[in-house]
């Protein structure tokens, strides 16, 4: 890139350590915790408990509850912005694991409830239906736990794939926040009524410590530190610039932004402090290398929130968390790089191209869009000996072919096999490019992808 319309780009910090995501101890630690919970249950259970079917079922129900409770803490820590986790796994994979564990937790909670009721009814010689009011009347803090369970189910159902398609982000987020109440309500019945805790102050202390530690981590990295950086960087919207059909750039002004150490291709969780935006944070990628006083995000009209950025007024305060992501220039092994962008994916690709060119690499940018009017930021890719810009507008139905299919990709980029391939766009497009690149001989380790949900 030879020309630039913004202030002098910062010197690319090429000496930064490579992110190491292969040797992460986070997930093994998580599974080790599961084993520890199993061992804890094993140590606190005598074989005599199983003399009756009811006793055995209740004991397994307790185990199910213990596992669910432990995994809830694990889930919270995974999305707790804990730096160790972010470095080891990466934000996107953390979110994916958080979602997977969410399914497991809701199912384990249900299993816990069913086993406790059925097992208890066998022990008491009551029907299943009369067992429920009986334990609610006698067991400590079971009413709050019941309400907590309902909240768990609500959060689980609202996060299911089918429901997410019909719920707005704001509604989903509001339901999701209620899980903190659910967890709080469900906690007391564990330590006050759980047979593994009431008799053992040590076990109870450890369990309380697990929850207190989780709460402290969340408070530190999701509340206190973001608030402190909010004060330090004092970010505000300075301009909103329409770029193309359905795409707009949000310029954010702040102080000392190079201290964020953000790289091209990374994203922030951005929250605009104005009515209609305040409640939600969205993952926005940088669309240029950050300067000391400006960040730029190029945002697609994806979902009801992103499309409203055009209404943002200059001066609106901005809160960010991040940067996140491993879609960065230092992932490239080769000096020759192909960047493939689709839709809003052009933002991170634009920032990535800037940094790769600064590092002296040879870059080809392949830009997909539904039509020519959707080719945002195209003017910023000034052709030069080290930069080739290939706009490929048009829907597949109109073109009569998929320009990202292997034979067309080879025609567009003949030397693709010797390049690192970065692809950023909707999941289906990222899949198509990854498949074609593999078919054309690009090693798996040279394919880097970032998905932008649409």
């Amino acid at each position, binding site marked *: 890139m030879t020309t630039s319309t913004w202030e002098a780009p910062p010197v690319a910090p090429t000496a930064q350590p490579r992110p190491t995501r292969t040797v992460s101890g986070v997930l093994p630690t998580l599974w080790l915790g599961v084993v520890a919970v199993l061992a804890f249950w094993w140590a606190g259970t005598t*074989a005599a*408990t199983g003399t009756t079917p009811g006793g055995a079922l209740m004991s397994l129900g307790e185990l199910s509850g213990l596992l669910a409770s432990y995994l809830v803490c694990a889930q919270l820590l995974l999305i707790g912005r804990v730096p160790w986790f972010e470095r080891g796994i990466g934000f996107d994979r953390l979110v994916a694991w958080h979602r997977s564990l969410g399914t497991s937790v809701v199912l384990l909670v249900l299993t816990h409830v069913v086993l406790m009721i059925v097992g208890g009814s066998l022990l008491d010689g009551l029907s299943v239906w009369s067992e429920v009011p009986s334990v609610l009347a006698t067991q400590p803090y079971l009413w709050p736990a019941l309400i907590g369970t309902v909240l768990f189910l609500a959060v689980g159902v609202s996060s299911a794939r089918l429901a997410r398609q019909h719920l707005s982000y704001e509604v989903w987020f509001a339901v999701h926040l209620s899980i903190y109440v659910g967890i709080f309500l469900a906690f007391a019945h564990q330590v006050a009524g759980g047979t593994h*805790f009431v008799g053992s102050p040590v076990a109870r202390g450890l369990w309380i410590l697990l929850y207190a530690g989780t709460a402290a981590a969340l408070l530190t990295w999701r509340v206190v530190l973001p608030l402190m950086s909010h004060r330090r960087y004092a970010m505000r919207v300075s301009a909103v610039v329409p770029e193309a059909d359905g795409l707009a750039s949000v310029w954010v002004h702040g102080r000392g932004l190079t201290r964020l150490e953000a790289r091209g291709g990374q994203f922030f969780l951005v929250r605009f402090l104005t009515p209609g935006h305040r409640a939600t944070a969205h*993952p926005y990628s940088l669309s240029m290398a950050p300067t000391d006083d400006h960040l730029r995000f190029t945002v697609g009209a994806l979902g009801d929130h992103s499309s409203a950025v055009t209404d943002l007024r200059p001066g609106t305060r901005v809160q960010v968390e991040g940067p996140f992501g491993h879609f960065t220039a230092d992932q490239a092994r080769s000096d020759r790089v192909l960047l493939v962008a689709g839709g809003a994916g052009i933002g991170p690709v634009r920032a990535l191209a800037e940094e790769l060119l600064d590092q002296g690499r040879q870059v080809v940018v392949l830009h997909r869009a539904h039509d020519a009017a959707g080719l945002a930021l195209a003017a910023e890719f000034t052709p030069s000996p080290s930069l080739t810009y290939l706009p490929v507008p048009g829907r597949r139905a109109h073109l009569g072919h998929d320009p990202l299919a292997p034979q067309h990709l080879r025609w567009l980029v003949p030397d693709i096999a010797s390049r690192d391939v970065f692809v950023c766009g909707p999941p289906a497009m990222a899949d198509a490019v990854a498949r074609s690149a593999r078919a054309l001989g690009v090693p798996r380790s040279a394919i880097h992808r970032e998905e932008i949900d649409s």
Partner: protein
Amino acid sequence: MSTPRWRGTLIYAGSLAAMGAAGFAKFAVLTPADTVAESSTDGMAASVPASDDMSASDDDAAGSDDDTAAADSGQAGSTTDPATSTDTGSTTSDTVTVVGSSVQTRYGPVQVSVTFAAGQITDVQVLQVPGGHHESVQINARATPILAQEVVDAQSAQIDTVSGATYTSEAYAESVQSAIDQQG
């Protein structure tokens, strides 16, 4: 940022398998006779002949708690009278120990003896508490001294339950009440 489909369900299935394996390893190797429970009631056999019947009904998976408890209180009343007959009905200055009825809980029988001196409750001794569960032993070791003190303080069976030992507390109070009733 796509999440692999069914991974959460697979983790759940794995958890169920682990739970099943742990439950099998823990419970499938046990002998039919609950040796822990037997030994705890064996000590009682001499003074309370009815304990054999009770442990038998206990092994029947507590099929009918109300019936068992009612029958037990009847038996306890009759069978323990001989043991305490020399004391019951003697003058109020004497120290009298009355055995309460055995009360079934979901975890096993609870039975206490109450010591009266000059009409006042001075002590409560536990004759039976559920011993089949490891956790029950711990809970009851913690709860029973508290319950005894509560009875002595209240001079009645109107006592608060100890949290985490609800079943034991209620059965304890019932057994104490039956002893007080016998004492008149």
